[in-house]
């Protein structure tokens, strides 16, 4: 593990990194929290995405689903992000060198940008969508990109853990 930036090397060998990596209980606990928070964040977000695409929860108004579901998904994201940073910290060198981890970060950024555009721009007319069973194309696209990028994040995350290929 030679060709890594100084900060990655420092994280890997810091007290926090070494502590999590070498603890019998800490790593599994942080990892389990990460996976459970996944269900709380992505698991719930997917239902909003499905609603956006007009594939699920068709009886509920879009704006209603958004208002009810997103705060809970957000809590999940905070837990997932914190536990994810800790996992990265403990295996910084392995993650940095892993092609799958880089792909994961890329899809995370894609999911983030997609969500940002939706929340800041697309969402402005959300109240109008309630009148129709299926939202406009730009909203459906946001839902589709969200589902695809999150699925890719999960797949790449699993592949990082197994060090595949």
């Amino acid at each position, binding site marked *: 593990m030679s060709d890594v930036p100084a900060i990655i090397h420092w994280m890997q060998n810091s007290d926090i990194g070494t502590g999590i990596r070498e603890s019998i209980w800490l790593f599994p606990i942080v990892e389990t929290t990460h996976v*459970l928070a996944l*269900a709380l964040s992505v*698991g719930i977000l*997917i*239902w909003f995405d499905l609603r956006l695409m007009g594939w699920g929860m068709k009886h*509920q108004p879009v704006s209603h689903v958004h208002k009810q579901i997103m705060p809970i998904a957000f809590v999940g994201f905070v837990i997932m992000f914190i536990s994810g940073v800790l996992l990265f910290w403990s295996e910084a060198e392995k993650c940095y060198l892993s092609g799958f981890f880089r792909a994961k970060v890329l899809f995370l950024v894609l999911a983030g940008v997609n969500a940002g555009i939706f929340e800041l721009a697309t969402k402005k007319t959300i109240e109008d969508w309630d009148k129709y069973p299926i939202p406009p194309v730009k909203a459906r696209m946001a839902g589709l990109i969200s589902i695809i990028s999150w699925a890719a994040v999960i797949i790449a995350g*699993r592949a990082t853990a197994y060090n595949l290929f």
Partner: protein
Amino acid sequence: MHYFLPFFRWCDSTWLGETIRSSRIYFPIIETFHLLALTILFGAVIVLNLRLCRIIMKGQPVQQVAQDLSPWALWSLVVILSSGIMLFLSEAMKCYASKPFQVKMVFLFSALIFHFTIHRKVTRTDREPGRLSGILVGTVNALLWLGVGLGGRGIGFL
């Protein structure tokens, strides 16, 4: 437990189990499907149970929310169970010796029975469940599925 030993041995020696074991990438790929599907199922379980506890979607009837979620939840359950059986076949002997696996199975069968009996009964009638029974059924259901998830993660670690 030793009554089950021949069954676990047989599972371990099946063609499917041996095939999955023989490759380095089959197991992770099947496990990824397992994880993707359980994300959908857990999401549905959480949404429905939060509704039962009257935390979200208070304006929508429980029955309606349950009906909207159920086709996706059911299909994800099918994917979870079939991928889960494949994973099990490939390491049945490891599972036989694994305490977390036993815990997971107890939670799994309890969760399935509870889900398709009491939980279904409460979520599939026009009558809105009482505040207390809604909270009770929702919480028990969520905890049972949480136990399945924790036990499952434990198999990989312990």
